[in-house]
């Protein structure tokens, strides 16, 4: 208040001019907020439209069903990368989902204990660790001791990338479950673990699945952690590995134990090659990847919106 009166008395602008200037500033600044919002949407639209334009012509059946053709040759596909991404993501999901959900249960049920706070904080910080550093960790943890690159190392690295997303969304969803449900179950004599797994988890399932989906979208889109864990392998083909005809354990072992590839990794390599066919395929892979990731995000949005509606009614 005192500063206002001081500036009032010091200034020589007549009251009406001051009023107009304040409103002019107001209009300009509020206009700028809208302007910058539109500005930020330009790259989003530009990327989506361009990737569709450049990628769509190269989307062929062959792209999804064939291994790469020789350098400079037309045709061939990225089957190796699709299979690699599937293997790595599946493994990462198997590793990260139980850990993530159980950790979320701990954090949600122990919100104000030192360990609960530390884990929440640790999860947030883990989400901020650059993915390339997590790739280095995967290298040090698995590639170095084993002496070779493998799908296993990539799966572990991607699992660590997915973990924070799973923990945080699951925690939020568990917290949304009405406490009365939990108390009701406990009052009926159910032990804590049964309450958690049979009452709280089903009630929160919609949100938990959403969290999984977002985590998978994040994991599939990552490149940096794959660079020196799975390395790349353009002859990777599960079909041939399975035809080898040993026991299931041996097959799984062979699937996980060799270097593999990924869609993002293939994109990165193809983008740097001087062959136009390869660059074209990079755009096609970008399109597939983008549609997958954006599709999952849209689906997750719809799911949450629906569960919120249900909760409100």
């Amino acid at each position, binding site marked *: 208040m005192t500063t206002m009166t001081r500036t009032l008395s010091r200034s020589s602008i007549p009251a009406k001019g001051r009023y107009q200037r304040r409103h002019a500033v*107001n209009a300009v600044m*509020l206009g700028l907020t809208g*302007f910058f919002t539109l500005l930020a949407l330009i790259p989003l639209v530009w990327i989506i439209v361009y990737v569709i334009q450049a990628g769509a012509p190269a989307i062929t059946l062959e792209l999804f069903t064939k291994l790469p053709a020789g350098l400079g040759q037309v045709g061939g596909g990225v089957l190796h990368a699709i299979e690699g991404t599937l293997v790595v993501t599946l493994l990462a999901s198997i590793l990260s989902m139980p850990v993530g959900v*159980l950790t979320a249960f701990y954090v949600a049920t122990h919100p104000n204990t030192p360990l609960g706070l530390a884990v929440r904080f640790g999860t947030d910080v883990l989400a*901020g660790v650059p993915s390339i550093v997590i790739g280095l960790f995967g290298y040090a943890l698995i590639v170095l001791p084993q002496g070779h690159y493998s799908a296993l190392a990539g799966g572990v690295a991607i699992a660590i990338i997915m973990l924070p997303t799973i923990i945080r969304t699951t925690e939020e969803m568990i917290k949304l479950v009405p406490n009365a449900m939990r108390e009701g179950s406990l009052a009926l004599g159910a032990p804590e673990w049964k309450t958690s797994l049979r009452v709280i988890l089903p009630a929160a399932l919609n949100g938990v699945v959403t969290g999984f989906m977002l985590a998978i979208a994040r994991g599939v889109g990552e490149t*940096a952690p794959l660079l020196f864990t799975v390395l790349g392998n353009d002859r990777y083909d599960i079909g041939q590995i399975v035809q080898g005809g040993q026991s299931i354990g041996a097959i799984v072992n062979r699937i996980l134990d060799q270097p593999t590839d990924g869609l993002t990794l293939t994109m990165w390599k193809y983008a740097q090659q001087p062959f136009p066919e390869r660059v074209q395929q990079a755009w096609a892979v970008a399109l597939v990847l983008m549609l997958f990731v954006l599709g999952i995000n849209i689906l997750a949005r719809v799911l949450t919106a629906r569960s919120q509606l249900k909760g409100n009614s």
Partner: protein
Amino acid sequence: MATLFPKKKSSSVGRTLRHGDVPWMAILFVMAILVLVLMLAIGWSVWDQSSASRQTFGASFVAPTTDSSWDPVNDHFQAWPIITGTLITAVIAIVVATPISIFIAIFLAELCPDRIRTPLNFMVEMLAAIPSVVFGLWGIFVFLPGVVKPVGDFLGNTLGFLPLFSGTIPASGTSRLGASLILTIMIIPTITAVTRDVLRAIPRAQREASLALGATRWEMIWQVLLPYGLSGILGAIILGLGRALGETMAVTMVIGNNTVEASGSLLKPGATLASVIANEFAEAVSKLHTSALIQLGLILFVMTLLLNMIARLLVWQVARRVPSEARA
């Protein structure tokens, strides 16, 4: 009351242990600890794996230098041009992205009509969800020639007397400027989302009091909301900085990976910690080279760890302060 873990704020009064609860809680406990162990293990592994490089080069690894110092052929590594390249690109990105993001956050939190709020929020999230490598591909073929090259030429012609804009930008547009601008696009969603949440958490009474005193909406935002949420917004900016420092693929694809470019000019190709690791690691032959690259990872880890801890504490502080004040 036999609880395994003390609970300060618990709804379940007098919870008793029943069949199977002890193993259940033990499992939860182990899983929770695992996240913390993971953080320590990541830190320890990059520390441990970089020991050869740390012992060989000591402090000279991070010391300022002007000679061609990152030399895999002769196994001599000094990271100064890489560290400065990382900082320059990230700081420029922050400087450009911060005002834009705050304006967008204000629009989303305060001004936006309800009908378009959800779609707009969603589109900002979309921008964050696009994989980094897609940004990179678009960057190489569209953004560098279409935007970065003209902007770089313009800056070189008009502000070329500044060391920051000295020299001319390569014809391909590959440069630190390209990395900075693509980072700007990539961190806008981060800063925007956190700032928006901080603004929305500010109690209504603060807004109403300011407007009731005759402030225009902008004055209310500028004099009340932004100062009130300052620490949270600062946290948002630091989170964005952390993301910009660690961003790998898009930067690697547009920055040119010149590890010896010592001039600070934005128009020159450069390298960042993450881009050098991504580019050289798989091809590193000598043990020392690998170790030096992992030491770059160590530097990156420590930087982002500190930034993230500071940022989270700042954001939490706002979140924790607000409810108690809103109640009062």
